[in-house]
C-alpha cells in the first residue's frame, strides 16, 4: 500500500521541479524571517535570488546542532511564538536542550509523513497499534501517535516504562502493530518467549526506530515474533520519526523527499558525494514553518540511492546507518554525548575528572555504566559513604542526561588519562 502515490511515486523530473520550486520559496522565507540565516547568507554574499533551483542547494551554508544550541531556545524559529503550537526537545552536547517548534501545519505534515511510513510498513486503519515510544519532550511518542491516528488505526498510547502492561494489552487487545525502539521490542519478545506467550501474540508489523539497528536484528525480531519489521528514521531537529522508512523490500529507507531534501556530503571536504558513496547525511526542510533548516548536518553516516524501488516508489533511499561523524551515543533512544557526562561528573567534587563509559546491551536493553575514581580527599572507609557517593553521582548524571546510569567506583589510576585522545567510551553493542 502507498499512502500518497502522487508524491511517493513522482517521476524524478517532477520531483526535481517540485524541490526546485520549494527550495526557492524556502530560501526566500528563511532569509526574511530568520536573522541567523540572513546573516549567514549575507556573509557568503548570497541573496535569495541566487537560488534558482535545487541544483543551487550546494551554494547554501550548513547548519549544525551547535547553531541550534547557540540560538537556544527559540532563536531559529521563523514564526512568532503565537504560531507555534508545540515544542519538543532533545539533549544537547552541553546539557542544554535542543528545542524544536512546530506550527499547526508542521504537525499536519509530520502526521502525513508518519502516515506514509506506517502505510509503507503495511499498517492500515484495520490495525490496533501500540505506540511504545516515550510520550513527552521526545518526538518518538507523539510523532508516531498522530501518524497512526492519521491512517485511522486504533491507537494505544502505551509510552514506555511498563513492559508488563504493554504485554498484557498486546495480548488482551490483540494488537497487530507496534512502534517502539528495536531493542525494546526484542526485550518484549524475550519476555513473551520466557512466559510461553509467543503463540498468543497477534502482532503482524513493527515499525522500529530512534536507534540504529542491523538487518540481523530485524531478522531476529521477524523470526521470533512472526512479524514484518520496518526501520523508521527521523531526528527531532528535522521533524521527528517519519523522515524516512523502509518498505517491504528493505533496500534502504524511502525519504519523504517532497518535504526533506537529503544530501550526502564528505565531511572533510564538505563536497557532495555521488549515489551509493558513504558520507554524512544532510537535510534541508522544504515545508517546515516553525523551524526550517537549511542543510542541517545530521552527523549520521550513510549513503543515498536515487533509483526507483521495486515497491514502485521513486523517492530517494538512504542506506542503513554506518555510524556517526561525532561521538554521540544513542542509548535507549536518548542521545548522549560523552562531553555531557564529563560536565555532569565535574559537578561532583568527590570524584576525579576521569571517566569511562561502558555501553552494553543486556537482555536487549541498553545499559550504561560509568566508571569513576574517587578523589582521595573524599575517600570514605564506610560502605554507606561510598554508596551515598555513588547515588549522588548517579543522580547528577540522571539530571544531565535524563537516563539512568550505573556508577561504578574504581581504584585510582585505573582510568586512562591520556589527554585529548583518551578513550572515554567502550560500546559493546553491535549496532552498525
Amino acid at each position, binding site marked *: 500500500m502507498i499512502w500518497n502515490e502522487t508524491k511517493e511515486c513522482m517521476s524524478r523530473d517532477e520531483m526535481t521541479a517540485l524541490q526546485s520550486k520549494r527550495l526557492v520559496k524556502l530560501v526566500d522565507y528563511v532569509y526574511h524571517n530568520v536573522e541567523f540565516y540572513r546573516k549567514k547568507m549575507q556573509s557568503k554574499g548570497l541573496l535569495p535570488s541566487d537560488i534558482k533551483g535545487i541544483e543551487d542547494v550546494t551554494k547554501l551554508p550548513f547548519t549544525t546542532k551547535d547553531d541550534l544550541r547557540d540560538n537556544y531556545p527559540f532563536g531559529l524559529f521563523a514564526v512568532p511564538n503565537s504560531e507555534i503550537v508545540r515544542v519538543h526537545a532533545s539533549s544537547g552536547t552541553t546539557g542544554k536542550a535542543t528545542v524544536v517548534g512546530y506550527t499547526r501545519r508542521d504537525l499536519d505534515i509530520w502526521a502525513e509523513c508518519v502516515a506514509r511510513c506506517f502505510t509503507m510498513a503495511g499498517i492500515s486503519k484495520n490495525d490496533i497499534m501500540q505506540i511504545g515510544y516515550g510520550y513527552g519532550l521526545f518526538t518518538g511518542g507523539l510523532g508516531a501517535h498522530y501518524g497512526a491516528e492519521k491512517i485511522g488505526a486504533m491507537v494505544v498510547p502505551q509510552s514506555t516504562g511498563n513492559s508488563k502492561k504493554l504485554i498484557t494489552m498486546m495480548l488482551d487487545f490483540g494488537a497487530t502493530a507496534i512502534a517502539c525502539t528495536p531493542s525494546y521490542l526484542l526485550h518484549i519478545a524475550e519476555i513473551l518467549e520466557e512466559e510461553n506467550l509467543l503463540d498468543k501474540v497477534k502482532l503482524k508489523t513493527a515499525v522500529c526506530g530512534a536507534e540504529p539497528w542491523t538487518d540481523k536484528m530485524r531478522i531476529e525480531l521477524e523470526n521470533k515474533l512472526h512479524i514484518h519489521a520496518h526501520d523508521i528514521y527521523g531526528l527531532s531537529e528535522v521533524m521527528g520519526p517519519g523522515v524516512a522508512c523502509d518498505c517491504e523490500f528493505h533496500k534502504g529507507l524511502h525519504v519523504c523527499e517532497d518535504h526533506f531534501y537529503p544530501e550526502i556530503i564528505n565531511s572533510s571536504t564538505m563536497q557532495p558525494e555521488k549515489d551509493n558513496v558513504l558520507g554524512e547525511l544532510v537535510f534541508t526542510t522544504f515545508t517546515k514553518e516553525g523551524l526550517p533548516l537549511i542543510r542541517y548536518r545530521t552527523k549520521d553516516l550513510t549513503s543515498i540511492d536515487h533509483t526507483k524501488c521495486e515497491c514502485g516508489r521513486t523517492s530517494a533511499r538512504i542506506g542503513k546507518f554506518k555510524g556517526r561523524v561525532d561521538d554521540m551515543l544513542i542509548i535507549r533512544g536518548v542521545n548522549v554525548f560523552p562531553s555531557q557526562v564529563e560536565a555532569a561528573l565535574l559537578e561532583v567534587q568527590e570524584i576525579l575528572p576521569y571517566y569511562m563509559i561502558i555501553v552494553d546491551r543486556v537482555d536487549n536493553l541498553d545499559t550504561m555504566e560509568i566508571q569513576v575514581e574517587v578523589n582521595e580527599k573524599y575517600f570514605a572507609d564506610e560502605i554507606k559513604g*561510598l554508596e551515598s557517593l555513588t547515588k549522588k553521582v548517579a543522580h547528577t548524571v540522571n539530571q544531565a542526561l535524563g537516563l539512568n546510569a550505573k556508577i561504578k567506583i574504581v581504584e585510582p589510576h585505573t582510568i586512562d588519562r591520556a589527554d585529548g585522545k583518551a578513550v572515554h567510551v567502550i560500546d559493546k553493542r553491535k549496532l552498525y
Partner: protein
Amino acid sequence: MIAKQLSVFIENRQGRLGEVLEVLKENKVNIISLSLADTTEYGLLRLIVNNPKLGKEKLSDNGFSTMLTDVLAVKIAHKSGSLQGLLELLSKNGINIEYMYGLSIDGDVASVVLKANDLQKADEILCKNGAETLSNEQILNF
C-alpha cells in the same frame, strides 16, 4: 585513646587482596587484625597494623586508595555479656556504631576495634565508665 586504622579500597577482582598484602609484606608491615567489608563491586579492607603510616605510604605509592581512619580499640573482659554491656553503654549515650571487628584475645582479656559516629564522645564515655581504649603502641604491646 584513639587508634589509627589503615583502610584500603579494593575492587572486587581476583588477586587484588593478595596484591595489597604483597605490598605490606615487602615493607615488613605486620597485620595485627583485619576486617573486610564487601559489596558486589568493591571491598573495604580495614587493617590494624604495626606501622599504619608506612603502610598507607607504600600502598598509595602502589596506586591503592588508602586512608588512615580513627577508631577505638577497646579492651573488654573475655566473658559472655561484656561486649553487650559495652554496646548498651554507647547506645544509651546516643552513639551509633558504624562497624566493629575483633582485635585479639589474650587469656581473660579480649579487645575489639570499633568506629562510631562520634568517636571522641564514645572514647570519653568508655573511659569514664572504666573501660580501656588502646593507642597503636598499646595494641602492639598488648
